[in-house]
């Protein structure tokens, strides 16, 4: 089975701030990491490969630094990676991303399954999988927690509905599946694989032109109209007095605010 896992480089939310004065993300000091939900997709792919054999290919889109994502995927167990890079893909969103990745999937040829993470840590729309399925014209399933191969060109997907409740669906291949973060925890990269991940020939870098995409295909279909900032934190309230009365007052306050 040839499995493609879409993996993206994002700014670590723990290192990004919001500038209230400029009403935008402050990325000074922000650190780029592999989108952690995508690692869950990779883990699912590696488990599937262990069960049925085949090949796991990481597919990424971004600037030269996105190479780090490809190397990390290889260190975790991917066989190789394709990085779609070049000035025309910088900052692309939504449909354009799906179109570029679709071109990548077609270029990789004979792909049976495309896996994505549930959401991107920075935008969090979770729209990639359905967009990809639309572009590819394939079956789609969202938020899978378990994938099991079946013999007749189908895959059995367990989808978590609510805690402890799952739904099992059968999907015809080829298909696009987004993997929920509630699935198996991504494995640690193996140190020896880390040492070898920068060997030549493991990451193929491809421009959009080579994939047959022109600028028109990459035009944006959504536009960010503005940023809604969370309300500024207000100073907390201090309750003073003897413990018993303070405790009563606290409980009373929590009740009025309907926290208790």
């Amino acid at each position, binding site marked *: 089975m040839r499995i493609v896992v879409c993996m993206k480089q994002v700014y670590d939310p723990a290192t990004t701030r919001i500038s209230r004065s400029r009403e935008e993300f402050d990325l000074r000091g922000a650190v780029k990491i592999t989108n952690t939900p995508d690692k869950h997709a990779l883990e699912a792919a590696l488990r599937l490969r262990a069960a049925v054999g085949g090949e796991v290919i990481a597919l990424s889109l971004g600037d030269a630094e996105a190479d*780090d994502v490809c*190397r*990390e995927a290889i*260190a975790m167990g991917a066989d190789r990676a394709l990085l779609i890079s070049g000035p025309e893909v910088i900052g692309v969103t939504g449909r354009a991303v799906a179109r570029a990745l679709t071109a990548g999937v077609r270029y990789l040829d004979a792909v049976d399954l495309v896996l994505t993470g549930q959401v991107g840590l920075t935008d969090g729309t979770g729209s990639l999988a359905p967009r990809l399925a639309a572009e590819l014209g394939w079956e789609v399933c969202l938020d899978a927690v378990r994938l099991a191969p079946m013999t007749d060109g189908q895959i059995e997907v367990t989808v978590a509905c609510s805690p402890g409740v799952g739904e099992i669906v059968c999907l015809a291949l080829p298909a696009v599946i987004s993997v929920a973060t509630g699935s198996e925890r991504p494995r*640690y*990269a*193996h*140190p*020896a694989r*880390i*040492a*070898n*991940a*920068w060997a030549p020939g493991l990451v193929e870098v491809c421009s959009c032109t080579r994939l047959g995409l022109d600028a028109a295909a990459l035009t944006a279909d959504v536009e960010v109209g503005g940023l809604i900032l969370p309300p500024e934190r207000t100073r907390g309230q201090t309750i003073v007095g003897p413990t018993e009365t303070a405790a009563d007052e606290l409980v009373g306050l929590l009740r009025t605010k309907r926290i208790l």
Partner: protein
Amino acid sequence: MDFTIPKSHQLFRKMVREFATQEIAPRTRQVDRQGWPDMELVHKLGEHGLLGIPFPQEYGGAGLGELGYCILMEEVGAVCTSTAAIIGAHIGIGVMAIYLGGNAEQKRRFLPDLCAGKKLAAFCLTEPNAGSDAAAIQTRAVRDGDRWILSGSKIYITNGPIADVLTVLAVTDPALGARGGVTAFIVEKGMPGLSVGTIEHKLGIRGSATSEIILDEVAVPSANVIGQVGAGFITFMQTLDTGRLGLGAACLGGATTALDMMCRYAAGRMQFGRPLADKQAIQWLIADTATEIEALRALVYRTAWMVDTHQPFTREAAICKLFGSEVASRAINRALQVHGALGYSCAFPLERMWRDARIAEIFEGTNEIQRIVIAEQAMRPYGVRVRP
């Protein structure tokens, strides 16, 4: 001059940090309390390839060199000194003696299982009457056909009670002494006559196991002689050089954690209406610690680079160990002071870190021995031979 750490090693640091946070840190308190290693954790370290980091892949290692080993020790040292001691005794000296002194056949025979953590190593040098004066060891090895009979006892052996493979130094020719009369052996668990003696109860690193190792006429095949007969002292001294560097790296991790705790607490703790961080007395503790850590970091990673580029590093390794252990002790002591009574409380990790830090000034050559090594190297160009 380029101080950039290669991408592969940056990714390795991320991996170790994740592992240390998720697997080691939650057990740190428990192993200290129970006074014994968590063997499940030790097996996990092996399973995830962390017990063979510096060794070549042909022997089952990760091939990440001394730089990789220092990153491992720094990140593990940042969360658990006991676990760092277990890894240090295994990789840094136990397996290292076989890797540096052993022949290709011995490396093929022993390293894969040791790197995978299927077997654990210990390094047996110290004896009741030979600590700093390592050349004064009394454990004897007498040739008997194609085997050697080892008799004697070793003390304060880290990993002693849990090790499967022990690298042991013994006297093969008392007339020659350290220069040609001392040989290193690979002793394997299960060999008749090998036993674990008294188990030590220690001030710190309680989550590592330390014991006496008793050799009662243990027959060791000649194939288990590390390198040449009579070359043991040199092998063991070279091994200690890399061990000291790794220890310096672990101290760097511990000191960095102490600084982090100190800053975090100083930022949040209000006294006299202002955070502690506003007080110059506290700022100076923070500044001194940050300065010393920066110097230690440069020292450790430059020395790792020297090892990986095959330059002599005996002097630098001794400096790393001496400076590192003192920086860590000072940093943790200051952090404890900043925390006040909370730092002294067993509810908080600083008291454990404070107890743990003390050992680094003692094992793998006391700091006094490090000063002798450094002075010896410093005085050499002046024609003076420094003796202990």
